[in-house]
């Protein structure tokens, strides 16, 4: 008896919850989302279907041949490993520095917080091409860093720093850092401050509170941020193209070269599909971590 009453009350509140937001009828709802679905159906999923067609045009046997050809290709293996390695480094650096930065902001007074937030948002508004160009101005042979090192007498002649992996890393971390800071900072803002007060009252120092309270409660947020940074890093094109050159090309650069220079659309399509599969799998993992995090918050 009581349980059925509860169920009824629950259903009643659910209906009220839904009805509260309902302004227009269902057919209008369908009509309003259909342009979006049509646009994405044709011009977002369409390209992926076209890629699949390009691969399977030669029949099932031909397509499996394409996959083995790409997967056993030495250059592809080198570039694929390099892509994973660079993305891994970018993720580790971005999340560690991003966490420290988010924590520092969180422990700062509101005025400092908003200044720091504006400084983090600014790169998001600036073109990636412009920011990458700025790094070439820093690292080129007659760039700022070489000039400073020469003037300081630390080196005798200018070093060639461009087109090396560390410079690609520096450029990519700069792009990805806001993507690591912002979600971690949001997670920190969602922490219950009473827990921290309780920890302080119990005599914990800042370091102990951080290790025993803050970090365990925010590690899922940091986990989601890591997967996102890694996934976006895998698909980088502009930064490795400008700062890396052919020796530090990543998978997107190789796909581009295959298609535009060698007219090997099938090979490029196979690599694109592989990249897509990896991306989707990782996002699935991120979704899982995200739902675990949501579970913890409750």
């Amino acid at each position, binding site marked *: 008896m009581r349980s059925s009453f509860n169920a009824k009350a629950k259903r009643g509140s659910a209906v009220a919850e839904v009805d509260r937001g309902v302004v227009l009828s269902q057919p209008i709802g369908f009509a309003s989302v259909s342009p979006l*679905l049509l646009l994405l159906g044709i011009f977002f999923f369409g390209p992926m279907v076209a890629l699949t067609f390009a691969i399977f045009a030669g029949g099932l046997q031909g397509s499996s041949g394409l996959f083995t050809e790409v997967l056993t290709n030495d250059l592809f293996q080198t570039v694929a490993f390099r892509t994973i390695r660079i993305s891994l480094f970018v993720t580790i650096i971005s999340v560690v520095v991003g966490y420290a930065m988010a924590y520092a902001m969180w422990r700062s007074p509101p005025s400092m917080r908003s200044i720091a937030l504006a400084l983090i948002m600014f790169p998001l508004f600036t073109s990636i091409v412009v920011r990458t160009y700025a790094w070439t*101005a820093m690292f080129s042979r007659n760039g700022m860093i070489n*000039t400073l090192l020469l003037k300081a007498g630390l080196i005798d002649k200018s070093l060639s720093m461009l087109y090396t992996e560390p410079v690609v890393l520096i450029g990519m971390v700069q792009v990805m850092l806001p993507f690591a800071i912002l979600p971690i900072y949001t997670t920190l803002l969602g922490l219950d401050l009473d827990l921290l007060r309780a920890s302080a009252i119990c005599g914990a120092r800042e370091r102990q509170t951080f290790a025993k309270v803050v970090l365990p409660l925010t590690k899922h947020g940091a986990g989601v941020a890591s997967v996102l940074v890694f996934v976006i890093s895998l698909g980088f094109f502009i930064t490795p193209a400008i700062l890396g050159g052919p020796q530090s090309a990543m998978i997107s650069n190789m796909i581009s070269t295959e298609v535009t220079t060698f007219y090997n659309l099938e090979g490029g399509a196979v690599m694109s599909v592989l990249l897509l599969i990896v991306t989707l799998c990782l996002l699935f993992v991120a979704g899982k971590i995200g739902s675990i995090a949501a579970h913890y918050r409750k």
Partner: protein
Amino acid sequence: MGETANIRRIRYLLIALVALYLIGPTLVVIWLSFSTDEVLRFPPHLFSWRWYEVFLFDERWNEAVRRSLLVGSLATFLATIIGSVAAFGTARTRLPGKQIVEIFAIAPLVVPPIILATGGYSLFAKLDMIGSNIGLAIMHTVLGVPYVYLIVSSALARTDPSIELAALSLGANRWRTIRDVSIPANLPAIITGALFAFLISFDEVVVTVFLSGSLAPTLPVRVFSSLSLAVSPVVAAVSTVQIIIAIVLMCLVGFLQRWQRRWAEAVAH
């Protein structure tokens, strides 16, 4: 919470270093753009407007700007309308499968651009749309529409639908309710979404390179391709103009957010 002045100093130092890393190189570009030198060097000989003059009066740079503005405004127009309408539809009707619409709308943000570039290339080759401004604008719409959808959706979640219901119950028809209540109450968010859609299009390189065909490059593509040749200070001037646009847009977005919040609060009272 007791903390020493030392910890605070380390914290501020960290924030300063990260901020320097994030925006320092960009500020150096502004300095370089006023150089009088033929090639990039440090420290640059100052001061001249010559690279700005090259940017302003060179026909190829002008063409790139025109093409970016054309494609960008078309993409902004499409993305703003399609994204806002869909956000409104999911927020204000009882629609089954809202989550699916949401996943659809966000998907272009996380898929690597090169996939859209190669896939779009093979699709456009079949449709004979390579080298068409409209085709390119549509692809930019795909990339910009998630931002419009997310920004307008979150604004709609914060404004109370009871004002719209009140208008309906007072005898306004659906169209008038939308025109006189829903749109004004969420206008700042819609404009913010439009700004982001424009910024995305104005910054897009990868898809644009693949789909432009024989057309003149857009501004970011022209900057990108001139970087792989010789680094001339004119790129610094072009970049400075883009940085100023970014600063203006950022201030505008900050202002719009405050405006939207005030709307939401005014409605709540």
